[in-house]
């Protein structure tokens, strides 16, 4: 038959609320995640992690364990398959992936063995029985800005480590008003609900891995490099992913050890991390210690801007939590400086975690801005209006769009901000002191090269193949909406396939760039397909397929300051006699490009804001200096927001399509968390008159502040 895309435009899918394509599978339990796909002859691997924070493995006593029922193998540095030395992964040199290659123990919770057995019960018992002897060395896990090993890196994930213009000290000295404060955020963990899991097997000369990956192509490429395999011989699939937040992109213990084990025993092997192992094996957000110095005229206009952040990294490799980068595009000043430093310690390696750099950086800077507003006697929104940059403060580039103030105005109207009495500590309701706060949010809007293939099928349907990942973002549904509109057909005629490295190169679900990068590839393929269909070609049984690659189009993008924006509002209630802080409501208004699916986009914004609340009040991993281990490395000790912690949260957006994107997308995955913790901290100040510069705002900190009028780290 002849298939044509519609001649008259079908009712648009983009911009309309659609429930998730995989929603039925998720509410009925049919959706299978990585650790749930059955395989014949499946064996189970259980990881053994180090119990010391620094030293060497002297001996792995595998003899007795190998005699235990069901045990098939014990892998350790003495017998594990060799990996590529000096491995360079998709995101650079990555010694964290070089597991069981040497006797060195770089931190507590580092993999020292894998026990493989017929059942998970047998593997677990054998893993617990395995005796590992160590030569211990003194360790250092104490993070401080004064640490002698502190250094300034060459770069950070958000660009250069340091940017500088103007004479900072001179402008500070000439300022009428100066804020100079220190802000800290603790170690925070992703804690995806789905633990990291992978099944690996050899199948007709190909390595197949069922993984929980935010980017199967990156994972496949990295595993191929690590195991020195032909890249085409590795296939990684991730149909459903139980959250990622930055922790599921790389070759890590679960997938590396599954591949090792299947290579050794020649059977499919599944390796699943325990919740406790997730606290040391998959990365986390470094604690940060930030100093912000703002100098302004009496009118609030900035003369001096300095944001200097310190984070930690491991002794294995450098990861920089780029807190200092957050304000680079947001505020200008005569003298403008941002800097990031790191301290290497005997701790697990930190990594990308939802809004890396921006989340803790925005807490510090947006808290400092609230302090500056207070000192200037200005409304916090007016202060931001007076400091809106006309071009990029560091780059000098024009803005693609900057709707920050539109967000603030719309948010202020809906939140009832204009009726706010600026004085702190004057509203009481029973045992509660009440206050409101606001903060700005911004996040880079990027795109990365991706490929796609769109097929016009003989039955009149269309198949879109793009190696996207749906980690809960709604990407699968959004891409189908984009494709349906581009093809001008109803959503029901579009079939979508994602989450399989065999689909080809595509950006991963990260950096708030997924949907934009993948949609772009889909749009280019659809455009060409429609041209070919317009010629009235008959569709052969195998369909007509058009492939696309956005490398060139993205390379041709004009260099601009391209960002999403948001205005965060929060109301907090504080009981200074118990130290309890309750967030009563939150509102976020965002300018974040074209919104493809309002239903799932709202969930993502609100989810990010919920992270912000959790960061402000709850999350804190506490590292014990003596053992080097976390004192609270499980979900009872590491509390993130539960249902009863979360009030009514509203999220909405203003129209802000990206002018240079074929769909107008900017990206929404991360901006929801940015600024949210600062808005809550600012609300707590407004309620009590006390600044909380150290997260989380725990009851003991509130009580301590009530006792002596200031909050301590």
């Amino acid at each position: 038959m002849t298939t044509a895309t519609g001649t008259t435009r079908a009712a648009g899918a983009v911009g309309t609320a659609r429930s998730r394509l995989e929603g039925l599978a998720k509410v009925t339990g049919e959706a299978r995640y990585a650790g749930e796909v059955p395989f014949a002859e499946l064996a189970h691997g259980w990881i053994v992690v180090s119990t010391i924070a620094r030293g060497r493995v002297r001996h792995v006593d595998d003899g007795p364990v190998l005699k235990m029922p069901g045990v098939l193998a014990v892998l350790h540095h003495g017998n594990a398959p060799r990996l590529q030395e000096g491995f360079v992964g998709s995101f650079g040199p990555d010694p964290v992936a070089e597991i069981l290659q040497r006797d060195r123990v770089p931190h507590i919770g580092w993999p020292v063995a894998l026990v493989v057995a017929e059942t998970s019960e047998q593997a677990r018992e054998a893993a617990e029985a395995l005796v590992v002897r160590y030569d211990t060395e003194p360790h250092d896990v104490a993070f401080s800005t004064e640490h002698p090993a502190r250094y300034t890196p060459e770069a950070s994930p958000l660009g250069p480590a340091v940017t500088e213009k103007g004479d900072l000290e001179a402008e500070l000295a000439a300022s009428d008003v100066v804020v100079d404060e220190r802000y800290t955020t603790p170690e925070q963990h992703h804690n995806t609900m789905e633990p990291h899991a992978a099944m690996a097997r050899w199948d007709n000369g190909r390595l197949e891995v069922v993984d929980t990956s935010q980017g199967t192509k990156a994972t496949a490429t990295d595993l191929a490099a690590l195991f020195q395999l032909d890249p085409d011989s590795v296939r990684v699939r991730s149909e459903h992913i139980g959250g990622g937040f930055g922790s599921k992109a790389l070759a890590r213990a679960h997938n590396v050890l599954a591949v090792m084990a299947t290579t050794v025993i020649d059977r499919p092997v599944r390796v699943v991390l325990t919740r406790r192992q997730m606290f040391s094996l998959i990365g986390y957000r470094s604690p940060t210690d930030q100093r912000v110095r703002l100098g302004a005229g009496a009118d609030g206009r900035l003369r001096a801007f300095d944001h200097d952040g310190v984070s930690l990294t491991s002794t294995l490799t450098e990861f920089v939590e780029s807190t200092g980068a957050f304000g680079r595009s947001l505020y200008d000043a005569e003298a403008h400086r941002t800097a990031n430093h790191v301290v290497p310690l005997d701790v697990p390696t930190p990594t990308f975690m939802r809004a890396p750099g921006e989340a803790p950086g925005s807490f510090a800077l947006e808290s400092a801005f609230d302090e500056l507003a207070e000192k200037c006697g200005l409304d916090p929104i007016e202060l931001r209006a007076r400091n809106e940059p006309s071009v990029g403060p560091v780059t000098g580039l024009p803005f693609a769009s900057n709707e920050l103030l539109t967000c603030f105005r719309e948010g202020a109207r809906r939140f009832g901000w204009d009726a706010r009495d600026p004085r702190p500590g004057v509203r009481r309701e029973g045992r509660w002191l009440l206050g409101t706060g606001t903060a700005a949010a911004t996040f880079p809007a990027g795109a990365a090269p991706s490929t796609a293939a769109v097929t016009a099928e003989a039955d009149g349907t269309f198949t879109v193949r793009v190696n996207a990942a749906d980690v809960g973002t709604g990407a699968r549904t959004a891409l189908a909406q984009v494709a349906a509109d581009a093809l001008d057909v109803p959503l029901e005629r579009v079939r979508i396939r994602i989450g399989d490295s065999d689909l080809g190169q595509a950006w991963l679900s990260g950096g708030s760039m997924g949907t934009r990068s993948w949609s772009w590839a889909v749009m280019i393929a659809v455009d060409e397909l429609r041209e070919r269909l317009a010629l009235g070609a008959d569709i052969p049984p195998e369909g007509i397929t058009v492939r696309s690659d956005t490398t060139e189009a993205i390379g041709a993008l004009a260099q601009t300051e391209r960002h999403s924006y948001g205005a965060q509002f929060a109301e907090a209630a504080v009981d200074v006699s118990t130290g309890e802080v309750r967030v009563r409501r939150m509102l976020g208004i965002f300018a974040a490009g074209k919104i493809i699916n309002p239903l799932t986009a709202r969930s993502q914004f609100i989810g990010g804001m919920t992270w912000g609340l959790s960061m402000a009040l709850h999350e804190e991993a506490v590292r014990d200096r003596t053992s080097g281990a976390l004192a609270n490395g499980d979900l009872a000790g590491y509390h993130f927001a539960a249902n009863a912690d979360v009030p009514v949260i509203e999220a909405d957006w203003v129209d802000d399509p990206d002018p240079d994107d074929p769909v107008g997308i900017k990206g929404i995955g991360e901006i929801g968390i940015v600024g949210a913790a600062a808005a809550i901290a600012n609300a707590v100040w407004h309620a009590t008159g006390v600044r909380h510069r150290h997260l989380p705002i725990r009851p003991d900190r509130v009580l301590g502040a009530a006792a002596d009028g200031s909050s301590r780290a």
Partner: protein
Amino acid sequence: MAPPTSSATATSSGITLNVNGEKRTLPVDHRTTLLDALRERLDLTGTKKGCDQGQCGACTVLVDGRRTLSCLQLAVAADGREITTIEGVAEGDRLHPVQQAFLDLDGYQCGYCTPGQICSAIAVIEEHAAGWPSAATADVRPEAGPPPLDADEIRERMSGNLCRCGAYVAIVDAVARAADEVRAADGTTEGVAAKEAAA
């Protein structure tokens, strides 16, 4: 509990679980949790393992009608019990009102905590209808009757089920809507929960 079956050994026993209305007899390792028996032995992977130590709620199932953390129960201890998992809460093709509300109102993102949330919510609605108070209940005297199932009650009663994507706002809406539908279907009371939750 049924007496040990002839298949019992020092490390395993035969048990019978009534899972989603179906009798399933199987030998299990004594160390096997109910969660692993469901997932690994009966291929009912809808029940999720989030922490395996009773801290997250992802493994919530109904045992004899009451919500239970299946990771904290040994399979042998569930011998003879009625187990309802996420795979068994719909009636044929007709979703349970809680499932439908999660689907319609986007009460989830990644979906991994969702089966546990849904099983928990089904139990919450029943516990509330039976007059059980919660920590959010202002008046717990028996004569006060069931409290309104408002947003605070739902939040409190659903707090054993963690969601890292941060879908709580929509989960509360979904549970409220489903509670109204369940009550309307039972003809017990007027549907008010959704209104109260929204207020």
